[in-house]
């Protein structure tokens, strides 16, 4: 896992939750392109967090070969659906599976940077504690932000968080009650997102208040 910060001279600015495309061109002209969620808040230098996939075409280069000072071809910002703006004053429910935390982290940083006081609950499902990204940052207490972890594969001996996969029952315990008018952002592997989104609708969340983003299976998930 590596977080890369870019210095982009003509960057038009981005919204929390947007992506960018990284485009790599080989000497023979072969081109590979991948979308990455932007990990930083609007106004901060653009950053992405990349997980190395053993059979990946782009991530091994980004995680191992890219050096400070290198130039790279980017396109963005992309997307306008899975974005959060502080003008929305509804309570926020953020649900992340694995590296689905990346765009949600941008939202949390944007909330803090913009002085927004909307109450936030983050439910973050990870296989192990070691796989939790941004852990130090997420564990810093922030007024109005509640972080709940569930570790699905392996838990430390003194673990006090959840230790099972996210299901309707767990959502019922963690999510804002439907009557609160919360806005939900769910990001993770496809099957995770399907489970969470249908669970929230089951709890009474109107489908348009449940924004989803699915990403492909990654090494071993």
């Amino acid at each position, binding site marked *: 896992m590596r977080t890369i910060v870019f210095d982009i001279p003509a960057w038009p600015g981005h919204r929390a939750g947007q*992506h960018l*495309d990284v485009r790599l061109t080989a000497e023979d002209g072969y081109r590979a*392109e991948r*979308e990455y969620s932007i990990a930083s808040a609007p106004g901060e230098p653009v950053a992405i967090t990349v997980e190395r996939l053993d059979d990946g075409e782009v991530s091994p280069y980004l995680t191992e070969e890219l050096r400070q000072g290198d130039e790279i071809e980017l*396109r*963005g910002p*992309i*997307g*306008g*659906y*899975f974005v959060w703006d502080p003008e929305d004053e509804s309570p926020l429910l953020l649900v992340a599976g694995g590296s689905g935390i990346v765009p949600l982290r941008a939202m949390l940083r944007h909330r803090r940077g913009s002085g927004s006081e909307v109450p936030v609950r983050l439910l973050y499902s990870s296989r192990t504690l070691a796989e939790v990204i941004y852990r130090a940052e997420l564990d810093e207490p922030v007024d109005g932000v509640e972080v709940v972890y569930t570790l699905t594969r392996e838990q430390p001996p003194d673990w006090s968080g959840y230790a099972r996969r996210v299901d309707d029952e767990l959502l019922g315990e963690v999510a804002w009650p439907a009557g609160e008018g919360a806005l939900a952002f769910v990001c993770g592997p*496809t099957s995770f*997102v399907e489970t969470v989104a249908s669970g929230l609708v089951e709890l009474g969340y109107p489908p348009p208040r449940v*924004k*989803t*983003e*699915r*990403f*492909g*299976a990654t090494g071993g998930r």
Partner: protein
Amino acid sequence: MEALDGNAIGGLLHEVFGAEMTTAMGVCADCGAAGPVAELVVYLQAPGTIVRCRSCSSILMVMVDVRGTRCIDLRGLAELESDS
């Protein structure tokens, strides 16, 4: 093959339409289901990119590069309306 969603083709659609399209509303020509492009079912690893209706699985869009030409088939959509 794993299904993603329309967020994954925001860049490709921007290239094709010249605008942010994940918030555009698409209407399925088959079942009439309407929703934002971001919520449609997307298969990236097919030969080309296939976009299906989340309600009835009909094919709504196909985007394929053939010898340097980008071919776009939108026959599965009754409407595609962008607010941007």
